[in-house]
Every structure is written in C-alpha cells, then in structure tokens.
C-alpha cells in the first residue's frame, strides 16, 4: 500500500477511528479489488496486516497523517485524519500525472468506502473474517459457519446476517 493510498483513504473517509477499523476496511477494500498489495494473516481477531500497522506509525512519525488518542473502555484508541497541511500536500501530488492516476484508482472505491463507513465495527470484523474464509476456497455457507465459530457469534445473530451481505457485496465488487 502506498503512502498516498493510505492517506487518501483516511481523507475520503473523513477520518477513521480505531486501528481495528482501518485494518478491516483496508482488508475489505483489497478484497474488492483495490490494489494495496498487502499481506493479511488471520489473527485472533480476524485478518490483520503488520505492514499496515507499521505504515500508520511511519506516516504519523513523518507528519503525513495526524494521530489522536481517545480513552475507551479497553484502553487507548488511536484515530487518524489529515490536517490542512497534510491535505494540501496530498492535493499537490494529485496535480501530477502519477497523482492523477493514483487518485482515479482510489475514487473508484468511494461508494464502497462510504458503505463500509456506515457499518458497526463488529459487522466489519465479521465480514472481513468471512471474506478471509471465503478466499481460502470455502463456499459462502461454510465461510459463514466458520466465521461464526471463529468469532464466537451465533450463526443466526443479526450482525452475522449483515456481515454476510456486506462480505458478498464486497467480493462481488471485484472484477479483477
């Protein structure tokens, strides 16, 4: 994933709250065909990319992203956005030929990103896990069943139904 892609994603989403939400959003966008070229592994809480986690920290350190913290029940949550200077820098790049191409590629996924933004964190997590199982050559029924078992969620619970719909929608976007 390029620095531009990650910054643009945060900008298009008007900021993203929590690193878990970023992980799942990026995983689902990649499953939809976005060329991030990240390797995800199925961790304890679902698909996770250590490269993406590192990239967030690198870009924050290089002042390409703004990180804020918020105390929540389970500790500290990290939120990300672009400040005005970072946004201007991004827009300057978008005026170049390479920037225009990169911008077009990301804009193609705006609608899907808007859909992901509206989801509850739990639904995103379940959908992302279901997509991972589906990618491991399982059919949708089996992927849903394994997700329910892996995430300890009743198979007929409303978040599972929403997650399956979302997961199928995401994978259906990928025509690559």
């Amino acid at each position, binding site marked *: 994933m390029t*620095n531009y892609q990650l910054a643009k994603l945060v900008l298009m989403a008007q900021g993203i709250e929590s690193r878990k939400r970023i992980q799942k959003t990026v995983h689902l966008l990649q499953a939809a065909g976005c060329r991030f070229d990240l390797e995800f592994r199925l961790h304890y809480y679902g698909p996770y990319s250590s490269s993406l986690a590192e990239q967030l*920290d690198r870009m924050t350190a290089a002042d390409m992203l703004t990180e804020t913290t918020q105390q929540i029940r389970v500790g500290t949550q990290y939120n990300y956005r672009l400040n005005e200077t970072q946004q201007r820098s991004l827009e300057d790049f978008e005026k170049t030929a390479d920037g225009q191409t990169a911008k077009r590629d990301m804009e193609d996924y705006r609608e899907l990103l808007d859909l992901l933004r509206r989801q509850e964190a739990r639904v995103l997590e379940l959908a992302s896990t279901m997509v991972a199982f589906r990618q491991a050559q399982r059919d949708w029924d089996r992927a849903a069943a394994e997700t329910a078992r892996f995430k300890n969620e009743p198979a007929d619970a409303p978040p599972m139904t929403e997650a399956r719909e979302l997961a199928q929608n995401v994978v259906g976007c990928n025509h690559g």
Partner: protein
Amino acid sequence: MAKTEKIFRDPLYNYVAIRGEENEWLLDLIDTVEVQRLRRIHQLGVSHFTYPGADHTRFSHALGVLHLMQQAWQRIEALSEDDESIRHAYRSLLAAAVLHDVGHGPFSHLFEPVLKTYRERWSHEYWSHEHWSCEVIRSADTEVHQELLDKGVDVEQVASLIEKDNEKPPPWQKTLLSSQLDVDRLDYLQRDSYFTGSGYGHYDWYRILNSFSLHEKDDFTVLVWPEKAVYAIEEYIFSRFYMYNNVYQHKTTRGFEKLLQAACGRAKQIHEGSRDARFVDEIAEFLDAETPTVKQYLALEDATLVYQLQLWSKHPDRALSDLAGRFLARKGFAAIEDPVSETGFDDARAKWETTLRKVVAQGGFEPEEFYVLHDELEFTMYDPYIPEKEEEVQDPYNAIFIKPEGSKPLVEVSRLLERLASVAGARSEQHRYYVPKECRDKARQIAESQRW
C-alpha cells in the same frame, strides 16, 4: 546405544536428545529424505558471504526447534493436569517443530523472491516456504507423509500448525511455533548469533520456556508470562533488534541476495525472449511444469543454484554472465544509501530510480533494471518486535502478554518496561540501492547533491 536413545551434539544446547520408545518415531521422521535434504540448505541464505562461519543449515535449526519444543512441552505437561485435549497435541507439536521449515528452497528465504519472479501467476502463498512445508506433509509422494501416517501422527493437524491462516489449532499451539515469542525464533536468534560470531543472541531462553502458563482469553487458551519473566523477554527483544539490524539486514549480505535475484531475473527475461537461458535440468523442469510437484520443488537445493550460476557465468548474454560471475567471485555491487525523503506524497523515489538507471547506462551496464537493485527492507523475513499499539488489536500473534499478579488484566510487555519503547517502536521506512562499483562515486555524488 539402543535406538531408543539418540543424542545429537549441538553447540547451543549440548545434547538434543530423543529418548524413549514412545519417541522413536521422531528418529524415523528425521531420517526421511525430505528432512535430510535440509542439511544442504543454508540457514541464513548467503550470509556466509559476510560472516564466514555462517554455514549452518536448516537441519541443525530443525533439531534446535525440536529441542526447545520438548522443553516447552515439559512445562505444558506440568500445567495440563492430564487434560486430554492438551496432551493430544504432543506428537503433532513435535512433528511440526521438525518439519516447520522442510519446505525451504535454495538458500532459504532468498529463494522466495526468486519464486515470485518465476511464478508470477501464482498467488502469493505459493511463494512461501510454509506453503511448501505443508505440501511436503500432505503429499502422499513424500517419505515424511508416509512416516507420519505409519506412526499414526495426524498429518492434517501437523500441517495446520504450520499453515498460515489455518485457524483450526488452538492459538496456544500455533503461537508456540509461530508468533512474536516462539520456539522457532528462540532457536534461530541464538543459532544465527553463534554461527555468525556476532554474539547478540544471549537471553535466558530457559526461563522463558519454563515460566509461561496457559490463560483463558476471550474463549481461547493463550500463552502468557509472569512478571518475573519480563527481563528474560526484554533480553530476547533486544537480541532480536540487534540481530535484525546487524545480521539479517547487513548491507553486504543484502547486496548479494539482490545480485543473485537479479541474475535469476535476467535469465527469466532471456527465457521469455525465446532464447536459451541454459537452465539446469532440475530448474527447467520446475519452471516448465504447469503445477510443479513437491518432488520437482525439492530437487532444488543450494548446490543446484550454485551450479546454475556457474553455467550462467559462461552464458553468451553479457549481463547474465556478468551478474552470475560477480556473485561467484564475491564481487558485489556498491550500496548507495537512500537519499529520498519520505515526508511527501510525490514521486521522488521514481525520479531517483530513473536517475540511477541513467548513471548505470552511461557506465555501459545494460539492461539497467538489473544494474540498479532496490532493497526495501520492510519486506524481509526477519523483523524486530513491534507490538500493535492499540490494546483492542493486540492478540497472541502480534503481542507478548504478561499476566500481572492478582486479577489484573493481561498487559503487553512493552507497557511494563519503558526501556523497550526505543527498540519496539515503529521504524522509518528503509530503502537501499545497489549499483556496480564502477558507478558508485557518480551515484553517491548525485544522491548528495540533490534533495529527493
């Protein structure tokens, strides 16, 4: 000595012992052709170009991991209180320890990017040695598979412990073999330190493997350590950091890795241009197969690749013979430190690479793409410990959990030891470039004279 006791002498642990009739099957597993092949695969790729002593192999590492798994098992056995579900894992864990690297190609991790170049149409998991280790275990054509079957070891369970993203085994079993603190790393950091002579691999592994406990977290059983183990873990994390920076990312070693990959890339280009790349039989057979078999893959060893380079060093293609000849003669390219600032979104890196290509072309080196070698360090196989910072995203695979006294919740180790922040934090993106030594001065001059 009866077959029921076998001792391997080892420079780290002195004795790696397999004792008792109930463990005899391990000796037969070690004696399979696929495990014995690991004697002919360098553990550290071409690090022996930099560290002359680093000639140890994947075989000795496999035995070391087995030894540490045996040690860990003693602890688990003491904790399990005859829990059958835990004891059931014994043979699979030991088999996975022996077999976890059985799918390594020539020069270990060095071969994975070569495979990526040669088999672009495969999905990325096929380039990894874990994939091939699982193939060796599952394929009915291997001695490993037959031995496991004959001895009643659950083949699928062994593969699931090694296979990425296979969620079937409980986390405590998978993380014992592959996580931020596992028997694999505990062995290779010490072993690589010993054989390179670099001396960074000192930590109290005995305490680490004799102090963990099994803990229920979110309906899973995970490994956790008590507060009294934090200093041993701290030593381990520092050791990992030093080894990463000084050995695994060594400028000279990485340069030779890139050079070998460039030679393989040029040969592929020649082959695709319908010219004879003069592949040795084993490599040609592997490349020509639509779906290579495990046997075709395992026919590739360090010596196969070295012989291939000897052939290429006499190839009529000027670039191929030059790249192969430089590798064999240990005449590496010169490293140019990265002059590109990573603080903008612009295309500075592409511009810098274009400039470097012009420099080597002016020096008479063509095709330029094989004479400007880019090394992006984040994609290497070894890494320092960088825990996930948000508690909600921390899990047993990406964090090392400490269980404080009393009923306090688990805490990630670097939260307890502030000193770790200096080595366990995010690092800046690291890039290096390599060009022929003949072009070094010009390239460095340009790198210093302009802001990128």
